[in-house]
């Protein structure tokens, strides 16, 4: 008989006997968890890569913090490229008594060069594609802004000093990502209308873009000619690095979700190992007989390994299909945060899925099977002859190494990967230690209970090793869910409670110098505590210690971005009350006339700055230089205005300045905002509470996605539990039959088994709650610097979840035990 036929025959026979079900399900769970994340992130990747030029709005972009120089536009024209311009800034939009912060984009004819605009007459309708842009005097609002302002098409709005008619509802805009990265809803206007709004003033944060499109070679030539001529404040953005903030965040999300999925794989491997071990033990006699009948060791190995490979292939395919279906949930929860429509997934994630299936199989199912080749033929006569089982860790070494390799690959960074592996091992060791301690402790109580408890606890104690594995496996999944639900809520609430009662809830930017006193008078008139107004000058860091500095000097992304963008500098005479000097000295009255900087400690660490270093900033074409005379610690949680870099008055006083402030507006005085915007139309008022609500909303959505992935972990944990129950099935059936023979009713038997399962569930829940509480405490105290109180619901929820999970799984394994006729036991003896 051909080997493949033999393998399939064996697979068929063992499947019919029910020997392979758990193995298959565990493999399917492992592959499905990885591919669900894989398919989802593939859709996001496609949205970014294949639609990159749509996200860019062209083939190439020049982004600047000042109007695009005419020579760039001329160069584009000379290259035969299409071009269009946009100007983006935040501003308040007034509609009657209502006002909202909006993300304003002014566009020129021809926009967008890539992708499409969609407009509609009704909010949230599908809309129609248009090649037009807003006519002068009109604006297009997205549905969110329309709704917030209570507007309809044809209504008027005020933007700065000008009035506009709402012409259409903007449904789709190609170069804008979803809710995730948008601080405010969108208003689209004609670029020629910007001047009449008078919104762009000194200190305004405005982004100017020149979008280019054309033949690939022409774009490339243009890029090569323009790049050396870019001035400070200008940069190029191509398709390969479109929307870096989106890519960066999504890469992190991808990595995290992938690692979360790997926890399921780890537990599935434990279930596979347990199930394979049971399979091996039940086939010892078969192999002895086969050897007796002439089978070689090699044939036995090839037979069983081949059978497993076929099973692995089937399981991996089924897992990929389930993963494909499962990713739709992730796309529903998270997809809209990034883009309106995600493309369908490609086939790429299937290969990693198959790889995970094979690693799980080869690493954890095959090692115990290899023992079958060593079954002595004499076993046919002497059943008591045992086969040496593979020593645990050595046999699974290959599987563990491959699993570690998977983690490193998923982490995308060796250092991070090694930390994760070490962290995972430490976490498992901790959980196992706690579980072992609890199992031993439980055994001390067994005398105090009735027969059922005694029997249940005795079983847990006798199978201590197996009990610990079950408790840790289920505990891991429950812990993850507790962290993502209850602990998340606790930490957010704790942070909220830590804020001062009247912490500032509004920021105002773009205040012009001549508006300072009128604004202070305005607050005084309306009986709102007049806030401090701080001067702000925008400058780019160009040298440190007289050596030019560029983003390329820093490997860390955050540091590179800090150097690339402009700083918000300020000058002050007095140290702000929520700042504390930790090195050096704040300037006295004499030193204020000198040139010095005070730098926040975090940014100093990021950029490698220290006391005594010289910083040079470029402001409006001129360079200003000063020495770091102090480092400060800032309490950012006060929601007051603070600055990374503060200069002495002498350094910055003479530069073009705008002002910024933050203040607390009581809920019953919201109409003040309308009056404020009407009096000072150029001011941008940022609602901190609204941003916090949006951030909270995003955190909730992301948490939901991660919880969904961790459901696979819980499922895998339940499989480990089931594998352990199955492994002891024969023993339990024998014990059950013996008890029935001694006079136990089914109900008494059921009570004993239930006592065991309830205890296991309670242990798993306790371990999960303990680990979650500890992690929460560490996060709160060490990372977030918050107060944290133990949450009793964490313990209750953990234990309840544990008991429900174990009872569900236990119920599946109970029936054969309860129904096993005692006579069969009598025959066996």
């Amino acid at each position: 008989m051909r080997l493949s036929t033999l393998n399939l025959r064996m697979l068929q026979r063992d499947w019919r006997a029910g020997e392979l079900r758990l193995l298959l399900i565990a493999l399917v769970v492992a592959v499905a968890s990885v591919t669900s994340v894989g398919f989802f992130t593939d859709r996001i990747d496609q949205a970014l890569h294949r639609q990159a030029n749509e996200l860019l709005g062209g083939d190439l972009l020049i982004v600047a913090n000042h109007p695009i120089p005419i020579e760039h536009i001329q160069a584009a024209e000379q290259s035969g490229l299409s071009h269009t311009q946009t100007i983006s800034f935040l501003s308040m939009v007034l509609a009657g008594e209502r006002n909202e912060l909006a993300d304003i984009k002014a566009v020129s004819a021809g926009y967008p060069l890539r992708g499409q605009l969609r407009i509609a007459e009704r909010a949230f309708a599908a809309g129609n594609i248009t090649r037009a842009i807003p006519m002068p005097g009109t604006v297009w609002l997205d549905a969110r802004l329309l709704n917030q302002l209570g507007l309809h098409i044809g209504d008027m709005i005020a933007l700065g000093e000008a009035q506009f008619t709402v012409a259409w509802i903007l449904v789709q805009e190609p170069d804008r990502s979803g809710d995730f990265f948008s601080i405010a809803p969108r208003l689209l206007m004609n670029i020629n209308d910007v001047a009449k709004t008078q919104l762009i003033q000194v200190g305004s944060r405005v982004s100017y873009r020149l979008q280019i499109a054309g033949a690939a070679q022409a774009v490339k030539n243009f890029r090569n000619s323009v790049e050396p001529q870019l001035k400070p404040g200008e940069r190029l953005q191509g398709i390969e690095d479109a929307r870096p903030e989106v890519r960066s965040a999504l890469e992190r999300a991808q990595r995290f979700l992938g690692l979360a999925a790997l926890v399921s794989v780890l537990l599935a491997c434990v279930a596979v190992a347990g199930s394979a071990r049971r399979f091996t033990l039940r086939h010892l006699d078969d192999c002895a007989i086969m050897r007796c009948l002439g089978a070689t060791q090699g044939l036995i190995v090839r037979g069983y390994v081949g059978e497993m490979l076929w099973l692995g292939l089937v399981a991996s395919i089924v897992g990929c299909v389930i993963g494909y279906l499962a990713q739709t949930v992730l796309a529903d929860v998270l997809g809209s945060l990034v883009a309106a429509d995600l493309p369908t997934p490609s086939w790429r994630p299937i290969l990693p899925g198959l790889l995970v299936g094979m690693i799980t199989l080869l690493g954890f199912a095959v090692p115990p099977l290899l023992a079958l080749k060593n079954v002595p033929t004499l076993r046919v006569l002497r059943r008591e002859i045992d086969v040496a089982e593979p020593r645990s860790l050595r046999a699974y070494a290959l599987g563990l190494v491959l699993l570690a390799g998977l983690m490193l690959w998923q982490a995308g960074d060796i250092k991070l990967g090694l930390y994760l592996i070490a962290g995972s091992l430490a976490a498992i060791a901790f959980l196992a230690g706690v579980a072992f301690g609890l199992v031993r402790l439980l055994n001390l109580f067994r005398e105090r209970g009735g027969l059922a408890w005694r029997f249940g606890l005795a079983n847990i104690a006798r199978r201590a090793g197996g009990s610990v594995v079950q408790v840790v496996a289920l505990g891991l999944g429950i812990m993850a869910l507790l962290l993502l639900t209850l602990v998340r809520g606790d930490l957010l609430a704790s942070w909220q409670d830590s804020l001062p009662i009247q912490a500032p809830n509004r920021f105002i930017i773009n205040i012009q110098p001549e508006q300072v006193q009128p604004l202070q008078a305005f607050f005084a008139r309306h009986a709102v505590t007049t806030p401090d107004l701080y001067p702000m000058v925008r400058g780019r860091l160009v040298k440190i210690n007289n050596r030019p500095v560029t983003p390329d000097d820093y490997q860390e992304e955050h540091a590179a971005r800090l150097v690339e963008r402009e700083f918000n500098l300020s000058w002050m005479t007095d140290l702000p009350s929520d700042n504390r000097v930790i090195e050096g000295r704040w300037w006295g009255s004499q030193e204020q006339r000198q040139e010095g900087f005070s730098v926040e400690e975090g940014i100093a660490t990021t950029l490698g700055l220290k006391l005594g270093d010289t910083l040079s900033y470029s402001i409006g074409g001129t360079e200003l230089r000063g020495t770091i005379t102090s480092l400060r610690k800032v309490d950012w949680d006060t929601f007051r205005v603070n600055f990374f870099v503060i200069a002495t008055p002498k350094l910055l006083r003479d530069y073009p300045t705008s002002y910024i402030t933050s203040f607390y507006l009581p809920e019953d005085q919201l109409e003040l905002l309308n009056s404020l915007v009407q009096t000072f139309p150029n001011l941008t008022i940022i609602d901190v509470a609204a941003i916090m609500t949006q951030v909270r909303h995003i955190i909730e959505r992301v948490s939901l996605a991660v919880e969904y992935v961790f459901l696979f972990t819980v499922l895998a944990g339940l499989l480990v539990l089931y594998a352990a129950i199955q492994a002891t099935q024969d023993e339990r059936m024998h014990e059950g039959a013996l008890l029935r023979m001694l006079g136990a009713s089914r109900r008494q038997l059921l009570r004993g088994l239930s006592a065991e399962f309830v205890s296991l569930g309670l242990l798993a829940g306790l371990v999960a709650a303990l680990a979650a509480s500890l992690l929460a405490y560490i996060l709160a105290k060490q990372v977030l610097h918050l107060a944290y109180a133990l949450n009793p619901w964490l313990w209750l929820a953990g234990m309840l979840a544990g008991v429900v999970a174990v009872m569900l799984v236990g119920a599946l394994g109970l029936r054969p035990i309860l129904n096993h006729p005692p006579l069969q036991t009598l025959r066996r003896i």
Partner: protein
Amino acid sequence: MLHKQVIGPEGSLVLLHDINFSVMPGEAVAIVGASGSGKTTLLGLLAGLDTPSQGRVLLDGQDLFALDEDGRARLRGSMIGFVFQTFQLLPSLTALENVMLPLELNERQPTRAVRETARAVLEQVGLGERLYHYPKQLSGGEQQRVAIARAFAAQPKLLLADEPTGNLDQATGERIIDLLFDLNRAQATTLLLVTHDEALSQRCNRRLRLVAGKLVAASADAVYQDTLPSSVKNNS
């Protein structure tokens, strides 16, 4: 007449037929026969672990098979003790807990009283110092003594012993048998002993010989009449 047949791959297979006998209270009866003669099947029917194809088993006047499975289990717990060749102790329970088991399953006494009874019986079989040892910590003979203690702890009316010395060396086996018969006499329990050992069977009042599922002439050997309890002699 007790009759048991099963349907096999080649048709009907008769395991027991025309079985008809009674056992007096306090009697010790040996069931002997070659392998495959039906001893285990008969034992199973007498304990209510299996159902006959025909016939009844009356235990203390109670028709065993008029009860459901739980009813038979309760009856076993209150009336029957078992001693097996392979001891059949629950490995996760200590010696004391194993002996307490049948009493606890009866749910008639509080746990403290049950514990005391179990302790006393274990002392009676010479294991007073091994109460908290697990079966794997005991020798074969000690495990069988625990099993005997368990069997007698509930003061059963009937004791079923299936090759109780089969897994023991001769010396230990003899001590076990002595213990078994001593306790049996002390409690006036009815004993049904399945054995291959002809010498052992001679210690019983009566022998029932099974050949191919059928009882051959069941005779009370006159030599053993004197060993019957007087209550039994008077009633027979």
